[in-house]
């Protein structure tokens, strides 16, 4: 993996200001070991908790010392079901991906939760990471994942009266056909 430059597994302890929550310095792999994982070269843990244990796992990672939720996004796997998943994890249509970052241990962890198409809802992690507020609203707006417990789950990027969730694979691009022959038609 030279491309990313020598990824420093320094594991050093950056002096976060002392008032941050006391972190029980345990390796992230020790968190809920029974949750299926995939080996990944760039991130320390790639976990696939079932929907029920998602909030519990995020809570566990936060207590181990992952102070910052750097990213939360939703992906629609309608046309690509055959992706590599650890055995025992049934591929669903939607997937919510959460990236957590530990400043003290300089590690990243990625949680991928399968969300079925029948009821696309998931519990919100806004009580643990208030920073995920806007990201969850964007995931709701773009892919239509409902986050229970989110105080004001409304659209954030699209106008209020917009119907449909644009980043779903069955949502057309909305292309206006241009006037030359080979231009792909509206999709």
């Amino acid at each position, binding site marked *: 993996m030279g491309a990313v430059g020598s990824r420093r597994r320094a594991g050093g302890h950056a002096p976060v200001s002392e008032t941050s929550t006391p972190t029980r310095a345990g390796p992230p792999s020790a968190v809920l070991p029974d949750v299926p994982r995939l080996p990944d070269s760039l991130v320390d843990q790639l976990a696939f908790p079932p929907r029920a244990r998602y909030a519990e796992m995020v809570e566990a990672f936060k207590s181990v010392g992952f102070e910052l939720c750097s990213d939360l996004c939703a992906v629609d796997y309608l046309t690509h079901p055959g992706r590599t998943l650890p055995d025992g994890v049934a591929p669903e249509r939607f997937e919510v991906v959460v990236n957590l970052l530990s400043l003290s241990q300089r590690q990243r962890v990625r949680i991928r939760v399968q969300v079925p198409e029948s009821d696309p809802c998931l519990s919100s992690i806004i009580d643990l990471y208030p920073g995920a507020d806007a990201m969850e609203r964007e995931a709701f707006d773009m892919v239509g994942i409902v986050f229970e417990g989110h105080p004001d789950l409304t659209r954030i990027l699209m*106008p209020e009266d*917009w119907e449909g969730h644009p980043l779903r694979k069955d949502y057309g691009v909305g292309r*206006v056909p241009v006037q030359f022959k080979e231009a792909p038609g509206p999709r």
Partner: protein
Amino acid sequence: MGIEDLQHNFLTGRIEDLVKWARRNSVWPATFGLACCAIEMMSVGAADYDLSRLGMEVFRASPRQADLMVVAGRVSQKMAPVLRQVYDQMMEPKWVISMGVCASTGGMFNNYAIVQGVDQIVPVDVYAPGCPPSPETLLHAILTLHEKIRTGEITRRPGSTVAAGEQATGGWVPSVPDAVRVATPR
């Protein structure tokens, strides 16, 4: 040195020329910076490309005091009614420069989110090409607008039969002096 040499200076100009000259040289743009083109518009306003030699360095924030709306950037579906609202609140006479390909035709974003061309919302006077248009291109667009003001009508005569669209650009195409047609020096 007879009277004919003074033909084009403003001393002997008619009132309309005087009004057109005054309007042309004091067009105040409304700050309508949306995206990347806004950064180029700002650098046109700054020291290197210096809009103030055209009397335009005062970027009025409120549409009540602005004459020119430079739509600088891509117009999203959520922004379209706001753009129309600000355009309506501008006082006549008002002009619109659609800066950049995203404002003019939706540019490379032919998708659900972008209005494919700002002329679906407001009547546009000058289209500036480029992504983003280099400051020289924007200055060229502003000079083209000045030329349009110079050769257009200053108001709509109540009884006139000429179609409104035609009258506004009356005589614009043929009598364009060469100075305006100089290609962008790129």
